[in-house]
């Protein structure tokens, strides 16, 4: 490997030996592509003319007007996922791979992978926990419409963690022809670095847009954290701006005092899962716990290693929002601003609404990472 793949003590490349050459190949392709103006031009062209970048920054009209929403919900595919998926699709082409595999929780990453599979001509297989298949039937249908095969995973808790396990098993046998298009800034090196760098565009645009809107940087930047790709993408360009508070919002599920949540950084301990040293929700023996969140995209017991480092170094703060708080924020945003956001993004919004109330003078930037169409059926059941 040419890069260290470490964020402080966290990160690394903890995979079976057989996968190391595939990760070395990916790192080389990633580093070489960054030096290649043709790669950058093709990616930027797709981001602008296919995916719809830049995404707008919306100042709230009826919610507190010190809230600014970075509208990744308006990106093609319905979430920030498309940014880095287009980039990895181009990398897979560069490496001569013909097949993509991916894991998905809410289905947003699966949809994004199906999009790039259709666009760039890959055979696409998406692993999805069978409970999530049930919760997110519309996204399953979307993936199938775009030609992807969706494989329901019956092992473990039948959610995102188990889908990652199954994708890694597939890749162990298929790496010669197949690229594992990992969906978040987690997993073994080089994924956390690669995904962050391809999601960095969110924060780069938002930073410039804030300066354009108010002539200065925001006081706080708030994003939801499951695996952590939208948060790290939004945070990355603000990390050197030490006056800007970075706040990640984890799924507090049915409450942080119980077992039913996905608050890895708030309630976990350091460990190794899915290729990286990071925070994990685990028992004293190191068995990984099943998690809970109303939002499938935050239902994950690990977190990207850079977030673990940002927490330990004190550069970012991490808080929780419960299912009920997220649902209330989802409803409020719909009623007041006419925007249906994803349940994941509603966690960030829930905390940002509290903050906007407490600090009316602060400018607060919120990552609206995805749109809520996929969650409407579930919301209908929960809010009825």
């Amino acid at each position, binding site marked *: *490997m040419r890069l260290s793949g470490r964020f402080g003590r966290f990160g*690394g*490349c*903890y*995979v*079976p*030996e*057989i*996968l*190391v*050459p595939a990760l070395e190949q990916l790192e080389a392709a990633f580093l070489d592509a960054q030096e290649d103006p043709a790669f950058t031009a093709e990616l930027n062209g797709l981001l602008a003319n296919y995916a719809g970048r830049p995404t707008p920054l919306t100042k709230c009209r009826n919610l507190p007007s010190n809230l600014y929403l970075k509208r990744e919900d308006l990106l093609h595919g319905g979430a920030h996922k498309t940014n880095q998926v287009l980039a990895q699709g181009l990398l897979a082409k560069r490496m001569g791979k013909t097949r993509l595999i991916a894991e998905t929780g809410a289905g947003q990453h699966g949809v994004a992978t199906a999009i790039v599979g259709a666009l760039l001509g890959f055979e696409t297989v998406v692993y999805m926990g069978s409970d999530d298949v049930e919760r997110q039937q519309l996204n399953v249908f979307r993936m199938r419409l775009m030609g992807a095969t969706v494989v329901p995973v019956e*092992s*473990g808790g039948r959610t995102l*963690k188990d889908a990652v*396990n199954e994708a*890694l*098993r597939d890749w*162990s*046998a*298929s*790496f*010669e022809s197949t690229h594992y298009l990992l969906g978040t800034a987690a997993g073994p090196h080089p994924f956390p670095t690669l995904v962050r760098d391809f999601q960095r565009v969110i924060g780069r645009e938002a930073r410039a847009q804030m300066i354009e809107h108010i002539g200065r940087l925001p006081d706080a930047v708030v994003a939801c954290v499951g695996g952590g790709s939208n948060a790290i993408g939004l945070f990355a360009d603000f990390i050197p701006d030490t006056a800007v508070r970075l706040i990640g919002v984890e799924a507090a599920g049915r409450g942080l005092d119980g077992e039913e949540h996905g608050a890895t950084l708030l309630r976990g301990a*350091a*460990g*190794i*899962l*899915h*290729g990286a*040293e990071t925070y*994990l929700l*685990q028992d*004293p*023996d*190191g*068995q*990984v716990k099943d998690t809970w969140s109303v939002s499938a995209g935050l239902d994950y017991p690990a977190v990207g290693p850079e977030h673990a480092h940002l927490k330990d170094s004190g550069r970012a703060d991490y808080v929780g929002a419960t299912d009920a708080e997220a649902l209330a924020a989802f409803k409020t945003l719909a009623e007041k601003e006419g925007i249906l956001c994803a349940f994941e993004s509603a966690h960030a919004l829930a905390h940002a609404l509290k903050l906007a109330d407490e600090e009316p003078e602060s400018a607060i930037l919120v990552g609206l990472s995805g749109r809520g169409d996929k969650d409407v059926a579930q919301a209908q059941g929960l809010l009825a």
Partner: protein
Amino acid sequence: MSRYAAMFERLNGECAFGAFLMLGDPDPLASAALLNAVVEGGADMVEVGIPFSDPVADGPVIQAAAGRALAAGVTVSDCFDLIAEFRARNGEVPVGILTYANIVMARPGFMRDAADAGVDSLLIADVPALEAEPYANAMQQSGVEPVLIAAANTPQKTLERIGKISKAYTYCVSRAGITGTHAGGQFDPGLVGRLAESGAPPPVFGFGISSPEHVRAAIGAGAKGVICGSAIVDLASRGGNVAAFVRTMKDSTRNDSVRQ
């Protein structure tokens, strides 16, 4: 001399047969009986899994075994107890642990506890040579021999690193994939030669060993030992005669049974 070195010396060139079992599967009592059965059947070495909730290197059979053990409430301490009881009954048979990094990391003093239980080696499936050094150092300090995996696609520079770090034997994965998927005796003969150049300890073939034909093919490809896992675990889960199966497999390692 370590138990592995003594075993290879006793075998005098004959291929070692390693039996893999998941500790605590389906419960500690039955697991202890299975450990005895594989030795009764003639296993030269016993490799044991400590169950982990997320075994990414394992296929459905070993995943299910880990799941049964965890469902029975088996803890890491229970696993060390099982090994210690086994060690009290069997002084010579080498015992190696195969597990995952988080299990090791979650327990301060894991290596010491393993050594105290009578464990000879430790393979951590998700710690490749790239990340192995701190783990291998901790093992050596406690008197546990590190075992690393060499795969058919592992580059020579990594094999050399493995040659330096791996002690008891080298766990060879001579085809892509996870445990319990069968290559039908297709092994890459190049790996053993490249390993020998790197000065690595004896090559023991891990994946894809479920029949006497596979054992003979592995020997033909230069294996000094084989480990059979999924076939034994699957047979045990169906109540089959594990000792008899191990005996058949061990018989196929004897030099006079090798036709190639």
